[in-house]
């Protein structure tokens, strides 16, 4: 017994000598552990990864490209265009005889990238704006936040459509417009956090040693905001996808021949009266599943990174 203990103690001493016994648990290790314990969130990450992988690998299994029209099906889509392995239309065809499998892959790529790019734009603008307003404080803060108040009072969807009409309906414009409208919430949250961080000792220490203000914001404030930012960013992505989809559903977003989940759902919804439900249900299934995953992941991240909020 005693010998065993001695061995253990010796091992520990060695470990300490090699400096890996006292591996500290950082905030992020803790957060990862909490996140992994959340079964719904981890399952969602898995499913979402599958969907992303599908959008990359899927085309290799496709028999038809997203532009080819299957003339054999055209005109009798309801009978011949059904999902089948025999003619290579795994998800059936759309009302123009195009392969829905390939179209869904195309739509998945665009919807997901709108979600991520839009959220990224919003996060970058919102974080910097909020951090600057919160850090500088005083009149500048008042003025900057008053602008946000005013912009928030304007119904975003209308301005978004207005911008799409004026500057033309392109995907790039959609990216920019959605991102530009979504940073407002972000900036408010970040400002609030910054206000509480900027009075902490380490910021004071940085200031005392003569670090420039711009550097304090980017090196000391923003990294400490990351937890909150990540949580809200994860909720922004599905929000962006929702906005894009409803605009595309109205026919004002992504334009043919390009497509997105919203545009596909819109096409499918228009033709349900002709017994072609699959044209609605396949894109809908992808849309709903991904949105579910994003919400669960967002929930998991909030529990992991922001445990007091709930």
């Amino acid at each position: 017994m005693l010998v065993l203990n001695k061995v253990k103690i010796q091992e520990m001493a060695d470990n300490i000598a090699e400096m890996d016994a006292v591996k500290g648990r950082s905030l992020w290790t803790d957060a990862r552990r909490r996140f992994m314990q959340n079964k719904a969130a981890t399952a969602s990450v898995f499913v979402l990864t599958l969907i992303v992988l599908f959008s990359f690998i899927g085309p290799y299994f496709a028999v038809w490209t997203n532009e080819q029209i299957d003339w054999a099906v055209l005109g009798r889509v309801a009978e011949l265009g059904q999902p089948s392995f025999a003619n290579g239309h795994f998800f059936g065809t759309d009302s123009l005889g195009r392969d829905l499998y390939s179209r869904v892959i195309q739509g998945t790529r665009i919807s997901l990238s709108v979600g991520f790019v839009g959220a990224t734009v919003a996060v970058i603008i919102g974080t910097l704006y909020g951090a600057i307003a919160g850090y500088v404080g005083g009149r500048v803060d008042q003025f900057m936040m008053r602008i946000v108040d005013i912009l928030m009072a304007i119904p975003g969807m209308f301005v978004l459509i207005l911008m799409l009409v004026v500057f033309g309906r392109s995907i790039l414009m959609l990216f920019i417009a959605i991102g530009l409208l979504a940073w407002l919430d972000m900036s408010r949250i970040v400002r609030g956090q910054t206000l509480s961080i900027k009075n902490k000792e380490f910021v004071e220490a940085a200031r005392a040693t003569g670090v420039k203000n711009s550097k304090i914001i980017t090196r000391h404030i923003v990294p400490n905001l990351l937890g909150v930012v990540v949580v809200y960013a994860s909720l922004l992505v599905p929000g962006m996808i929702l906005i894009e989809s409803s605009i595309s559903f109205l026919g004002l977003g992504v334009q043919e021949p390009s497509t997105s989940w919203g545009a596909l759902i819109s096409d499918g919804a228009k033709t349900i009266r002709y017994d072609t439900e699959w044209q609605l249900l396949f894109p809908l299934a992808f849309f709903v599943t991904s949105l579910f995953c994003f919400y669960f992941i967002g929930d998991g991240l909030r529990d992991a990174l922001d445990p007091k909020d709930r």
Partner: protein
Amino acid sequence: MLNYVIKRVGLAIPTMLILIVFSFLLMHSAPGGPFTSERPLPPQVLANIEAKYGLNQPLWRQIINYIWGILTEFDLGPSFRYKDRTVNDIIEQGFPITIKYGGWAFIFAVGIGVPLGIIAAVRQNTWIDYFAVGFSIGAAVLPNFVMAPLLVIVFTLWLGWLPGGGWNGGDFQHMVMPVIALSTSYMASIARITRSSMLEVLNSNFIRTARAKGLPEHVVILRHALKPAMLPMISYLGPAFVGIITGSFIIDLYFGTGGIGIHFVNAALNRDYSVIMGLTVLVGSLTIAFNLIVDLIYAWIDPKIRY
């Protein structure tokens, strides 16, 4: 309180002006005038038309005229596409419809969402709580453009109970699906918000005190817990209102109900700028007014708000 009201109204007016000026500038910066067509008009005719609509004046003059027209006689100008209609005609025709089903959707969302959230919180971890939580998670991914076709599949194509679209003066049958499609996701959000804030309030000290002094449970909930628990829900009403108005675009497009949404979308597709502007101004001012009311109610209920 009065100071706060003045401050909030003071913020609402410049917001409105900024919205008008911003959308006016956006519209003006668009390539091509409203009368640019494939076959160019003779310059003299074009000049006459522009003079008629006041487009030959300097930009600032146009903006002031536009705002003055709205303020004095609520005149939003003529439609550039439909020569026989003004924007006011379009609003008169479409807006009552939007308000009718939108209002019902709003009432429906609040009237079911709030009680559901309260009951779920009071009966935490019972089947009704699980149902409410499950419903609010499920409905979060069922926005109106997903609900609308699904409802049509079930109630029109399978069951044949309800007409798949149209308005017909807004009778019950034609209202059911638009209202359900429009309200589901907001109902779910309201239920979720109400539940979590109610849970928080029920765990707080003053509720324990109320229980400790022997108040019956329904008095504790209705008299003490309800008011503070409603605050987060009230601040959600603003976004929900905007969401229902914008959701009406999809309802109008899909069910053919004929509200302002369809006019807005058509105007956007046809580049009918004055209609887009007019509807943006109308909905913008409604939103701002609604948010103002919500804020005032909030300040009235919550004593912690500083005036």
